[in-house]
């Protein structure tokens, strides 16, 4: 219980978003919504503003849920370790996503939103092993966002398995699942400033396993198969292949 009160207090004190962060997050939500709803402005080749606006607003809600879940996860994970998390939007990444959506006519979603920076809070780090800022702390705070998106997507999908709600046939929920996975996958790319780069710098082996599992699950999802076990198996195979092909040669004592 003390842990919960401590985290709540830290969140109240240091969890607020700065105006710059709010501006950036709103931009991410709007650009993501535009990307999701790009080829849904009408039926077939006919342009319909009303249908388009409806789809766009739905996409805004989907993007807002996804982005905010990741944001809160980053923050809570960082605060739990005694660090204040700052989110910096990568505007050029969003521009690349827009170029890609125009070139592919809405076929390829490329979402490169931004990355996190952690600030050391000296009083809250007292007693922690490795007092200063370290790659492990950054890696954990970075991993929390994609992980939260995956958990959300899985929780929605579980509604179908446990309560027989046809999630995949409801457009909103199906898109929410797919977008959460896509957002998690893109965030795990090892391109600075995306959170994936922080995980890669922390440990290449862990990164190979996590990215392999998430990419594996995403590939299975595209094929209509929902299986965490297979995704983890793909992750283990990629982790092993990475070790055999690269990692074992890079360590020479």
């Amino acid at each position: 219980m003390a842990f919960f009160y401590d985290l709540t207090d830290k969140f109240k004190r240091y969890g607020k978003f700065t105006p710059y962060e709010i501006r950036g997050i709103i931009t991410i939500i709007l650009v993501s919504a535009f990307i999701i709803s790009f080829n849904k402005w009408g039926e077939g080749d006919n342009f319909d503003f009303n249908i388009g606006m409806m789809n766009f607003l739905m996409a805004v809600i989907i993007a807002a849920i996804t982005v905010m879940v990741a944001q809160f996860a980053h923050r809570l994970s960082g605060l739990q370790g005694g660090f204040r998390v700052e989110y910096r939007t990568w505007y050029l990444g969003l521009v690349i996503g827009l170029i890609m959506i125009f070139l592919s006519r809405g076929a390829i979603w490329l979402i490169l939103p931004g990355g996190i920076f952690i600030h050391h809070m000296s009083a809250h780090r007292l007693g922690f092993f490795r007092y200063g800022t370290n790659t492990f702390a950054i890696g954990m705070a970075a991993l929390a966002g994609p992980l939260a998106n995956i958990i959300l997507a899985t929780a929605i999908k579980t509604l179908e398995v446990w309560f027989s709600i046809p999630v995949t046939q409801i457009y909103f929920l199906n898109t929410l699942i797919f977008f959460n996975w896509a957002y998690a996958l893109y965030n795990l790319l090892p391109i600075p400033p995306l959170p994936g780069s922080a995980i890669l710098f922390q440990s290449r082996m862990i990164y190979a396993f996590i990215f392999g599992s998430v990419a594996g699950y995403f590939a299975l999802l595209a094929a209509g198969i929902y299986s965490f076990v297979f995704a983890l198996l793909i992750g283990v195979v990629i982790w092993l292949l990475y070790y055999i092909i690269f990692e074992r040669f890079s360590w020479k004592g």
Partner: protein
Amino acid sequence: MLKKLMKNKNGAIDLIFSWVEIVAFILLVLGFIVAFISGSAVITYTIAFLSGLFFGRVWYNVRKKEKFAYFLMIVFFLIGFILGSFYGEKLVIILFYILGIIFYYYLLRKKVVR
């Protein structure tokens, strides 16, 4: 001649000496491909503007440095883009491209984006 210029004594491509030409050439090809894929005038103009935003960032980053190398890259991308665009007016494409550069440079200068 070009081969001689690009390679050092060992016959390898001299990246330190000729990186500007190499990057400019890659951007020329990239600009051509991007413009070639865009299937209508509206998309061509939009992509010209978005590409301009990208180079606005580059121009801002090098504002206190020697700019000619980056100027060359920006121009080469535009040349590639114009060569590859079959839709829309060339002049409008140039206009949107420059507008994109100025717009993003302005946003960075006013600290709207970082």
